[in-house]
């Protein structure tokens, strides 16, 4: 674990894997430090920003954090209903050497975890994607991916909370309310959440 200075009131915690990112995030989240303003996990880092004077408490928690074992936090499980009729379903099946039905079986059979969010409000990068579905982005990204599209890219799967440009291979779509700024809990998915997908007819 390396700590990198990030302005006066933030520190970037650098680790070696997504598992260690989740361990750092969970350790800091469960410590519930009153002065922490933002706790932003990413692929190999966790950004912690605080009110003035809040960093010493952060360093203390990090000094005793065990990266090999995740803090036991109560993790919410979210089930997302998906209609598997995406425009790239055949492409993904072909690349994996599977039938579309087998792709659906694999995608719904796995348990995922929100590693981090970014790109757009409520866009959650989910890890736990079965190996055959880990496929590159499209050579040419779409200028508009419709709201609710479910796709795969690299080691991640995700659902688009709003229509944006995007290069993920799209295998389905969901009506789940992924992001609504007027709700008390605006984002359906947040870092640490466990997620499953369920096929709807």
């Amino acid at each position, binding site marked *: 674990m390396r700590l*990198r*200075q*990030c*302005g*006066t*009131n*933030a520190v*970037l915690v650098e680790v070696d894997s997504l598992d260690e990112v989740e361990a750092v995030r969970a350790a800091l989240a469960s410590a519930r430090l009153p002065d922490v*303003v*933002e*706790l*932003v*996990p*990413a*692929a*190999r*880092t*966790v*950004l912690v*920003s605080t009110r003035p004077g809040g960093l010493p408490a952060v360093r203390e928690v990090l000094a005793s954090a065990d990266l090999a074992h995740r803090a036991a936090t109560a993790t919410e499980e979210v089930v997302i209903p998906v209609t598997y009729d995406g425009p790239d379903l055949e492409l993904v099946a072909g690349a994996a050497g599977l039938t579309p039905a087998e792709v659906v079986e694999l995608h719904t059979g796995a348990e995922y975890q929100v590693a*981090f*969010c*970014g*790109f*757009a*409000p*409520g*866009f959650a990068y989910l890890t736990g994607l079965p190996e055959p579905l880990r496929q590159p982005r499209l050579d040419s990204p779409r200028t508009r991916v419709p709201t609710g599209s479910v796709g795969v890219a690299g080691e991640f799967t995700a659902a688009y909370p*709003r229509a944006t440009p995007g290069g993920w291979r799209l295998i389905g779509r969901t009506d789940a309310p992924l*992001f609504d*700024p*007027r709700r008390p809990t*605006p*984002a359906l998915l*947040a*870092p640490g959440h466990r997620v499953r997908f369920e096929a709807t007819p």
Partner: protein
Amino acid sequence: MTPAEPRVLHSDIASRTPGGHESYARDPRVPRSLTVLGAGPQTLVQDLGRPGHAHLGVPPSGALDAPSLKLANRLVGNPEDAAGLEVLLGGLVVRANASCTVAVTGPHTPARVNGVLRDSPFHLAAGDTLALGAPSGGLRAYVAVSGGVAVPEELGSRASDVLSGLGPAPLAEGDEVPLGEPAGVPVGVDVLVPTPAPDELVVPVLLGPRDDWFADAGGQLLGGRWTVSDRSNRVGIRLTGTSLERAPERVGRELASEGLVTGAVQVPPDGLPVVFLADHPTTGGYPVVGVVAERALPLLGQARPGTLLRFAPQG
């Protein structure tokens, strides 16, 4: 929507009313609001933003020159975090539909009530028209109105975020801007000191988190000279000028996306730094060589394209 159709920004005062019926504490035929007669190049609702949601991909947003918005709010008797208007390069014309106190802060900006120049704070009676001229320097004036702008909150804030689209759309001619009920007492002043708008900024920057991606980051930042580009906005200040060189072992390397703070100086492969402001993306994949001191952010929010900029790096 046709331009002739008035657009009513939904008021959360009405929606808060028990029973769900639209009614107001005062005569419902005289809602507290402003009617937009002209919006200028860009007028946005801003408060102090919605920090604390970056882990959901939500930028902090909020007034770029926050001290000016806080001052304007104090002048009209609002809490400092009430929502006001951030007016880019003047041009805002509004008609008051109820009696209210108004303050205009930021760079020196002429404010006329029914055509007559006024010093802030001042009073508007129902029917009065306020028009802002262009600021003599800088970019953004802040207009606070007693009661505050009362559009609904999204994630605890009324701020318009130009990156994520959260908060109300930029004001347009014909909009009705709802106002809250005044809660405090306006503060009288004799003279307001405008935000300075120097031709050259010297911006203190603390090195890191990725200064090791650059050969002698401190030396390069200290020796470089930049100009604020006209491609700057609320997301960030783009700079033209000295290209920062990566350390030889980092050339062509990629960085996994990581969290960004407001004030981060990110360096894309072309070497020209971008200083992120309030509507910045929550993560980015180019190395951040340093983070500017918080006290410099309001001046950056007021820096016109063409402003000269140097960095004063600190370890």
